[in-house]
C-alpha cells in the first residue's frame, strides 16, 4: 500500500511548513486571479444581457434604437414610486426623440411585503408592459397569478393609460375598477394596480424632466 513517507520530511523545522503553505497559497491566488481575469468580462456581459432581456419584456426592442442599458437616470419619489430608494429610469429613444421609459417602482402594500415591479411606459403615456420582478406573496393565493410564467393577468395593463380607464377605473373589479382580482386574494392585485397607476401619474408629471435629466 502506498502511504505517506513521513520519515523523509518530518525532521525539518516548522519554517518548511510555513514556506510550503505560503507557496501553495500564492499559487492558489494566482489561479484565482487568472480565472477572474478571464471570466469577468463575460460575467458582466451576461449580467447586462439579463437586465436587457427583462427591460425588453416591458419595452419591445423595435420601439427604440438607443442603447437602453446605458441611458438611464435615477429618481426618488416615495409617494408615487413606493420606495425611499432611488428608482432607475431607463430611457428609450428613437431617432433621438423620446420613445418611452422603463422604471422599477415598488408596490409597498403587498400582502407579503413590497412587490417590486418593472413598468414600461410609451412616450404617449400608454403602458408598454408590466412585470413583477420580486415578491413574497403567497403562492396560489395571488402569488402565482402575478407571475407571467403562470398567468397572463399582468398583461391586462398593456396599452392602458391615465385616460383608459379614468382614475376611478384604476382598481380591481371588487372596488369598482376594471382589473380582475384573484380568488381569495384582493390585496395583491389591488397593490399592483395602484402602483402601476402611480407610475403613470409620476411619468405624466415628470416626463419632460426624465428625458433631459443627466
Amino acid at each position, binding site marked *: *500500500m*502506498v502511504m*505517506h513517507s513521513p520519515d523523509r520530511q*518530518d525532521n525539518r523545522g*516548522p519554517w518548511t511548513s510555513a514556506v510550503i503553505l505560503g507557496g*501553495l497559497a500564492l499559487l492558489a*491566488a494566482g489561479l484565482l486571479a487568472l*480565472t477572474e481575469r478571464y471570466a469577468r468580462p*463575460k460575467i458582466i456581459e*451576461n449580467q447586462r444581457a439579463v437586465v436587457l432581456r427583462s427591460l425588453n419584456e416591458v419595452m419591445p426592442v423595435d420601439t427604440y434604437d438607443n442603447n437602453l442599458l446605458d441611458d438611464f437616470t435615477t429618481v426618488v419619489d416615495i409617494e408615487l414610486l413606493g420606495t425611499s430608494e432611488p428608482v432607475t429610469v431607463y430611457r428609450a429613444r428613437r431617432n433621438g426623440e423620446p420613445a418611452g421609459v422603463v422604471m422599477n417602482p415598488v408596490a409597498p402594500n403587498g400582502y407579503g411585503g413590497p412587490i417590486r415591479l418593472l413598468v414600461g411606459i410609451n412616450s404617449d403615456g400608454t403602458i408598454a408592459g408590466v412585470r413583477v420582478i420580486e415578491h413574497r406573496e403567497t403562492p396560489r393565493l395571488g402569488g402565482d397569478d402575478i407571475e407571467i410564467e403562470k398567468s397572463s393577468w399582468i398583461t391586462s395593463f398593456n396599452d392602458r393609460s391615465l385616460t383608459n380607464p379614468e382614475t376611478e377605473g384604476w382598481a380591481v373589479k371588487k372596488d369598482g375598477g376594471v382589473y380582475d382580482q384573484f380568488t381569495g386574494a384582493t390585496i395583491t392585485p389591488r397593490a399592483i394596480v395602484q402602483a402601476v397607476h402611480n407610475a403613470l401619474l409620476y411619468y405624466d408629471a415628470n416626463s419632460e424632466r426624465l428625458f433631459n435629466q443627466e
Partner: protein
Amino acid sequence: MPVTSAEIVRDGLWDNNVGLVQLLGLCPLLAVSNTVVNGLGLGLATMFVLLLSNTTVSLIRPLLRPEIRIVVFVLVIASLVTSVELLMNAHFHDLYESLGIFIPLIVTNCAIISRAEAFASRQPVGRAALDGLMTGIGFAAVLVTLGALRELLGRGSLFVHAQMIFGDGAQALTLQLFDRGFLLAVLPPGAFIGLGLLIAVKNVIDGRRARKVSPAILQPKAQAG
C-alpha cells in the same frame, strides 16, 4: 481501500457511493435535486471539482506534511470551487443563477475533502484522478436520479430548463408528461423521502446480489491477488 482500477470504479459508482452509502454532501443533494437539470448541473460541477482536487492533492502530496495537510486541502478545494463558480457564471449564467448559493457551497461538501484525505493524498495521480472522477459521477448520478424522480412526481415533467445546460434549442428536450404533480415531491421533505427510497432500492439490489454470489464467497479468492 480499493486496489485495482476496476475496484476504484465500482467503489465510486456503487459500493461506496457518496450519496447512497456514505451519505456525504446531503445538503446540496437534497436542496438541488428538485429537477433533472439542477441535479445534473450541480452534479457535473461537483464532479469537476472532485476530479481536479484529487489530481491536485495527489500531485502535491510530497509537500503534504501532517500539520498543514488539512489547511492545504481546504485551500485547494476552495480555490477550485471559486474558479468553477466564476467559469459557470461566465458560460452557464442561467444555470449559475438557478443553483445560486449551492455552487460556492460545494466547498463544504465533505465528500470532496474526504476523498482528498482518505485517497488522493496517498495515491499516485492517475488513480487519484480516476477515484475523483468516479466518486463525482456516482454523486452526480444520485443527484440526477433523485432530480428525475422528484421532477416527474412533483411537476409531471422532465428536463425542464434544459437550455440552461445544453444551450438554446434544447427546450425541445423538455417533456411535459402530465400537468399537476404531487407537490410534496418538490418540497424538501420529498427529497428526504426520495433519497430514502433510492437507498432502499440499492440495498435490495445489493441483498439479492449477495445471495446470488454467496456460494462463491465460500471459495478461496486467491486468484484475485
